[in-house]
């Protein structure tokens, strides 16, 4: 065995030297030790070879097919053709359906509010008329405590204000006209609302239908990843 005047360097230092670390290579005393030492020389030699073999380790094939998401299934799908073409149309169709639903809902809401506003506006007219016609009690009492006047007002706003007051007032007592006014009012209210809200309702239903169909189409045409 070669006699060494200097102690062996730390093994980690030798590993750095074998790995080509610039500071270890620049250490001339380390280099001269490695070239003369029977222990450290072969160790560095082995480590260098090991490092070279590690750097040559080949790539490894995946054990199962890898899902190359997100782009692969879109890219592998046919770029043209009826299915992909149809699928591309589903997004705007879904958006259009949602838009129709929104417009329909807003329209119905606005119609309802307009109806209520109209009712409020016409609320005073029959009252005044009633007061001027005959019985001072009927108008104020009915107007003050009975919600059943609201439908009758709706009827009034729907186009026959002249008939409201005589019919409600002419029945005598406050109790008597209420059922009549209520019944008539409900009927008139429903008739009036269906005529003004019908287009909005149609839009709403059409929107729901369009959205539902396009969503179903989109899912049914989606390629399956993996």
């Amino acid at each position, binding site marked *: 065995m070669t006699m060494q005047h200097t102690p062996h360097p730390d*093994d*980690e*230092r030798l*590993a*750095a030297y*074998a*790995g080509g*670390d610039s500071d270890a290579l620049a250490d001339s005393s380390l280099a001269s030790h490695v070239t003369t030492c029977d222990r450290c020389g072969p*160790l560095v030699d*082995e*480590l260098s*070879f*090991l*490092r070279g*073999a*590690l*750097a*040559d*380790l*080949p*790539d*490894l*094939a*995946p*054990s*199962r097919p*890898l*899902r*190359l*998401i*997100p*782009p*692969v299934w*879109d*890219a*592998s799908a046919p770029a043209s053709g009826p299915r992909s073409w149809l699928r591309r149309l589903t997004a705007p169709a879904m958006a259009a359906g949602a838009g129709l639903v929104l417009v329909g809902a807003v329209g119905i809401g606005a119609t309802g509010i307009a109806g209520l506003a109209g009712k409020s506006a016409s609320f005073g007219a029959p009252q005044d008329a009633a007061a001027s016609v005959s019985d001072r009690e009927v108008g104020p009492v009915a107007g003050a405590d009975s919600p059943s006047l609201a439908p009758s007002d709706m009827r009034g706003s729907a186009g026959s204000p002249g008939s409201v007051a005589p019919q409600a007032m002419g029945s005598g007592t406050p109790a008597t006209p209420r059922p009549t006014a209520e019944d008539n009012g409900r009927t008139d209210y429903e008739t009036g609302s269906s005529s003004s809200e019908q287009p909005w309702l149609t839009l709403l239903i059409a929107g729901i239908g369009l959205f539902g169909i396009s969503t179903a189409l989109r899912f049914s045409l989606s390629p399956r990843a993996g």
Partner: protein
Amino acid sequence: MLPRDPARPASRTAPLPDEEAVIARAAAGDRTAFTQLIEHYQSACYGLAWRLLGDPDQAADAAQDAFVHAYDAIAKYRGGLFRSWLLRITANASYDILRRAQRKPTTTLPDAEEGEAELPDRSAADPEAEAGRSELYRYLDAALRLLPQDQRTAVVLCDVYGMDYGEVADATESALGTVKSRIHRGRLRLRELMAEHRELFRNERRLDR
């Protein structure tokens, strides 16, 4: 007995002949071009993930995570070796999985220290199928799996995949000095693990000369 080992292509994946053009198309949003790149390099990514994680399923997950990150980032790719760029992303994705696994003790990775008994038994190896360098590679991969996790990660990233110390420190979120020490200790430990197969080294060196 040799641990379960993925199939080995003959060598490392070389760059595509028209790689720069394919990268440019992928960066411009061409998904087909991106897929072409990923399909070409998937063995490289999977190999790195497998060597870091030691588990085929986790390696596949890490590679797939890396593809998603690469897809998001390819518009910002600024030249250099595409393989190295993709491997850095794969290393980060693998390390994320490693960290999650370490936080959840129920899904621990194979314990390197406990696996010592799994060092390849040469008598069990098929001398024809595992001849030459491929036999050396199989033993090396087996030995890598027996390194402590931190040393294995550092050695794999630095010595197998050619990252410099700074890149390894970034990927593992460790200090530069810590990384150097892990690599040096890992190399020494690997040498010990390969000691009984030293004749492979000698054979290889004879072949090299």
